């Protein structure tokens, strides 16, 4: 049951906090406009870097930090399939079955959502009342797609943005090569993957690339710009919230 005004704990994610605050404010705006009360509890990182490096102890400590900070909310929402996936799909496995923490992790898991999936699947939002004059293509971030089933949700909402044309790229579901620490541990492989992604983006002729995870966006924007390609890169929440006044990812103030 959705209470009249669900209380949301916004999990900003560490990348958004540091690199792209606009995404956090976009999420805030979208949630508030959809009738939610939003708070931003004390937070750092979901612990995924430790978890994927094999350091379960650190991952567990950080999971406990997040559980404690967020468990009193009706829902936890993150503008990232990767971080939401970490909380939803992996937190429980960090704790012993039947332990108190396991139960708390499982409870948090059931109420944690990726932003676009929360807006559509839980709140039933059908319309984004904004416009965006541009041709966009959408990259499916791996965790959101495969762990959380985020595929149609952002597209459905983008379909209602006035002036926006969506052009699908080939292999939109193939990894962009970010992979957290992978991109610095195996830079040549990562570069090859992001180069393939860029080629597929270019082939669409779109002027804007959107995705739901900042890791992918930083990676793809960095590659596009190194190659001197003038395609704008934005988080899908920015477009849906109409906060596209700020420069796109990696763009200088006042445009290029």
């Amino acid at each position, binding site marked *: 049951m959705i209470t009249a005004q669900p209380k949301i704990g916004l999990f*900003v994610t*560490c990348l*958004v*906090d*540091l*690199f*792209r*605050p*606009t995404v956090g404010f976009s999420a805030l705006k979208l949630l508030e406009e959809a009738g939610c009360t939003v708070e*931003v509890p*004390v937070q*750092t*990182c979901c612990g995924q870097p*430790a978890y*994927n*490096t*094999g*350091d*379960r102890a*650190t991952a567990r*400590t*950080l999971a406990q*930090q997040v559980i404690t900070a967020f468990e009193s909310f009706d829902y936890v929402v993150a503008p990232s399939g990767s971080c939401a996936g970490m909380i939803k799909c992996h937190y429980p496995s960090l704790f012993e079955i039947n332990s108190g923490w396991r139960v708390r992790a499982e409870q948090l898991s059931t109420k944690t959502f990726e932003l676009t999936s929360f807006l559509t699947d839980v709140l039933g939002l059908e319309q984004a009342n904004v416009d965006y004059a541009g041709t966009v293509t959408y990259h499916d971030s*791996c*965790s959101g797609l*495969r*762990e959380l089933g985020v595929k149609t949700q952002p597209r459905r909402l983008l379909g209602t943005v006035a002036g926006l044309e969506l052009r699908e790229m080939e292999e939109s*579901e*193939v*990894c962009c*090569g*970010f*992979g*957290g*620490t*992978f*991109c*610095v*541990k*195996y*830079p*040549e*492989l*990562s*570069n090859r*993957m*992001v180069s393939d992604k860029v080629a597929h983006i270019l082939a669409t002729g779109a002027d804007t690339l959107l995705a739901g995870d900042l890791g992918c966006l*930083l*990676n793809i*924007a*960095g*590659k596009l*710009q*190194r190659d001197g390609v003038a395609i704008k*890169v934005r988080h899908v929440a920015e477009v849906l919230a109409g906060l596209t006044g*700020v420069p796109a990812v*990696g763009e*200088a*103030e006042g445009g*290029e």
Partner: protein
Amino acid sequence: MQATSLAFKRNAIAALNNPVLQKALNNIKIGFVRKRAAAVAKLPEFGLLRDAGRDLRNHVLDHLDFYLERFEAQVIESGGQVHWARDAAEANQIVLDICRSVNARLVTKGKSMVSEEIGLNDFLEANGIRPVETDLGEYIIQLRHEQPSHIIAPAVHLNREQVADAFQAHHAPYGFTERHEEPRALLDEARQVLRQQFLQADVGITGANFCVAETGSTVIVTNEGNGDLTQTLPRVHIALASIEKVVPTLEDVSLLLRLLARSATGQELSVYTTFSTGPRHPADVDGPEQFHVVLLDNGRSSMIGGEFQDMLRCIRCAACLNHCPVYSAIGGHAYGWVYPGPMGSVLTPQLIGIEVAGQLPNASTFCGRCEEVCPVQIPLPKLMRHWREREFERHLTPMPTRFGLGVWAFFAKRPKLYRRAASFAAWALRRLAGGAGRIKRLPLAKGWTAWRDLPAPPGRTFQQQWAARREQRP
């Protein structure tokens, strides 16, 4: 085989810079990925089949001893023999002893990854027995003294010219002096050379895709028919299989065959599916006089009941290789041992040690495409993560990674301190970018900036802006 997995990074960079290999790897997308997608799209119940496949393989692994004993009894019942090999050395010795008992000089072989795992060809050659691979891809790489680069398409890394070169270099003694490059001509030439071997061979060695407990049969699937000639023409047939290949009934085999062919090549069924049950019976028109099954453990039984047990569900379809963005970028040789791709990244550390193979489970973005296509739903990313956990516990994680993680964790566990550090980082990165929106070179993140720019933050973190906002309108 000497593993070069420690040099994975170097191998991978060399592969990325090898234009011939890169061109050959392109074929995987067309030959495997698209065909699988089309075959799966045509079968609405494919998802249900995957559930059934997973459950069946789990059931077998939970009762492995029971089905293996049943299988052994049925092989004996039908007149064959079963040999148990604890490791590669024992398996090689068993095969050699059988070959010697019939004074074998020439052995034909069907495709078998277990044979690669135990290094059988080198061992036989060192003991004066000549093994000849009869699967076309295996035959080509045998001529080139190479390892397979793919578990079902061993020569996928080669192009036609390279095959023509290999044939030209080796086929003169068989009367072939002209160089051909057309696929048809190459195939005919290989057929004629191999036909002579089939007729002269004393022993035929094949792998086994499945071992059927209820009948004592071994099953192979091929598209060339070479496996059938290998196992029916010589006097002795040896089937090499690892212990987890056992399946309870023929009905179960049919389930797995439907999954296997579609996942592997997008076929509904492979061209040949051959069941071998015991040696030639009096009423049979052909078949071997002796039928042996060598069952290899090589550390697999120690995986039962542990966190890597799920890996034993594998039916070697290679879908995880074909769909892996890392495998498709570098091919199989870079992995440095027998099994490449995601399945190899889990299995290889088990077989040759995480100290040697530690790079493999790390070279993944955990994109999850392998698990998504695996016909028996093996959680490959999770299993790779388990290897990283073992590495971390044993302090095998490389120092820079461990150190970086330690510093990051120190702050991440202290929210107040973290906020200040993040604010500083946002400010510092902004300064570094200057008037530009991005940073072209960053000494501490060379891996990133060697290939791409780093988009710069606007200068103030979300938390800073949020706090300021709340002061304005509490």
